[in-house]
């Protein structure tokens, strides 16, 4: 049991000549909410893509509970216990809410081809487990009434809830949320904020990218600030909001307080 559940060490990513992420290190404590903030193009989503295996790091290491997971494939990292959502809400939009959730549970199951054909006991147990987890998750994300609806009939906010629900279905150890309230109005943002608080209360470890400062200051235990691919500050919301480098990055070098 490591107190730092997810640890990133000297993470670097080059795209041809462009340095997208440079020597970034931080850790996420068990049960905490860590926010990654920074101006557009700072490399926040690239960090998520590196952690979740969609990109391979040029150099640097990623540890989950002390185990080196750098460079593994995305589905492999999902099996290790890291779930993520995407900036542009990604869902299986040809399917219904329950189907989306069920797919999120797939990695918890072990029935293969033959169990599926013969409906073996293992298959039945997997199905029962899946149904129970779907009921639990539907209640948790508040979409029980919409269980049989198609994704295309859901509102923007409901879709974002569902995307979080799909990630929760695998009972992850760490969940990465990439702008979970992007494009939402204030009331809807509050709804998602409450959901994230509920996830923390349930013991989840969360890493979140956000632009909405007020929300992040209220939510995060610690904040990492990126600018041009480098970490320029780290600390509690209070420390970060007073940091001179952060103020300059957000408001421009000429700004005088």
């Amino acid at each position: 049991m490591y107190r730092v559940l997810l640890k990133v060490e000297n993470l670097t990513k080059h795209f041809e000549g462009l340095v997208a992420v440079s020597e970034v290190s931080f850790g996420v404590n068990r049960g905490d909410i860590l926010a990654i903030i920074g101006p557009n193009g700072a490399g926040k989503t690239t960090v998520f893509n590196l952690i979740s295996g969609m990109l391979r790091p040029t150099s640097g290491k990623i540890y989950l509970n002390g185990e080196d997971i750098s460079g593994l494939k995305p589905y492999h990292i999902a099996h290790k216990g890291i779930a993520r959502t995407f900036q542009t809400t990604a869902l299986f939009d040809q399917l219904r809410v329950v189907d989306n959730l069920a797919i999120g549970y797939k990695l918890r199951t072990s029935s293969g081809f033959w169990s599926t054909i013969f409906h073996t006991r293992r298959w039945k147990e997997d199905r029962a487990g899946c149904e129970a987890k779907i009921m639990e998750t539907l209640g948790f994300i508040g979409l029980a009434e919409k269980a049989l609806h198609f994704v295309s009939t859901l509102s923007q906010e409901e879709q974002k809830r569902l995307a979080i629900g799909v990630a929760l279905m695998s009972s992850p150890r760490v969940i990465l949320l990439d702008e979970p309230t992007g494009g939402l109005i204030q009331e809807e943002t509050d709804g998602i904020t409450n959901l994230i608080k509920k996830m923390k209360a349930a013991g989840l470890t969360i890493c979140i990218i956000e632009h909405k400062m007020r929300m992040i200051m209220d939510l995060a235990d610690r904040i990492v600030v990126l600018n041009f691919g480098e970490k320029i500050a780290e600390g509690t919301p209070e420390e970060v909001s007073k940091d001179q480098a952060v103020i300059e990055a957000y408001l421009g070098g000429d700004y005088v307080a």
Partner: protein
Amino acid sequence: MVLQLIKQKWFYLAILAIALAVPLLVPNRYFFQIIIISCIFAIATLSMNLILGYTGQASLAHAGFFGIGAYGVGLMTKAGVSFWLALPASALLAALVGFLIGIPTLRTRGSYFAIATLCFGVIVSIIAGNWVSLTGGHTGVVGIPRPSPIPLPLAGEITFQTQTAQYYLVLAFLLLTLFVMHRLVYSLQGLSFMAVRNNEVLADAVGINTFATKMLSFVVANFFAALAGGIYASIIGSISPSTASYTLTFNWLVYLLLGGAATLSGPIAGAFAIPILMEYMQFLEEYRQLIFGALLIVVIIYFPRGLMGGLASLRVKAVNYSHRRKAGVPSAAESGKPDQAF
């Protein structure tokens, strides 16, 4: 809801009863033969549906694998091997070849996968036409024996010399295929196929090994394609390179798209309706192709889910309309696609 389930059950039983009574209903031997071949092609179309309809990978090698099954059974049974051994052996061979072909081709996406598999399909028919010592070249293999009789403990044996017996044989294989497809599709495994079709990046992120998932779908589809080919060789009695030709693939593709991809009833409806319609439109001669071409375009644009998919959404609309009239509220929850439930 319950009433609807009972109705559905009766509906399927009625179709099964009609299927069993076909030998009594067919007007002549010629029409009977069309029905038998439709059954075989329905197996091929159903299996194509798994990789193309549910998994979203447009494999155009299907007739190639059908051909592997046909040549496997044809050559083996002529060499004296029992049909009941040659058929699974050929299907397993095709599954293995599919696995090997899948290793490079399944790494490609979209039209590249379609082109790569089309090439493989063409290669199979070229080999069939030129490896004269094994395949008999363009004359093909003739005089393939009928399926070996099944011995019964008391009443002698079941032979497959009559059309009626052959029909029940292909019907049994069609039902077996349908059973396997049904089990696969209505499960987490089936949802994984659809997940890969719908959003491969997200499927990967939620822990689905997309390559292995596509491989499973491809291998199972090819197994059943070869199974259909093996039965075809034994029932028809002769095969040639055209048995593995890509024109067959495109025929099944038309059955699939018109009948309804990613439904279980669509491929069967397409495989029966189109050849039978073709027969009744004999008088139109070559213009038939023109009509089907135009029909295909109309269906793809206006009924992207084919005949069966279109019927299902019409039914949903009708139900929603009657609900609205009764209760004065819209009922979007009813809009469940029946073929995509877990």
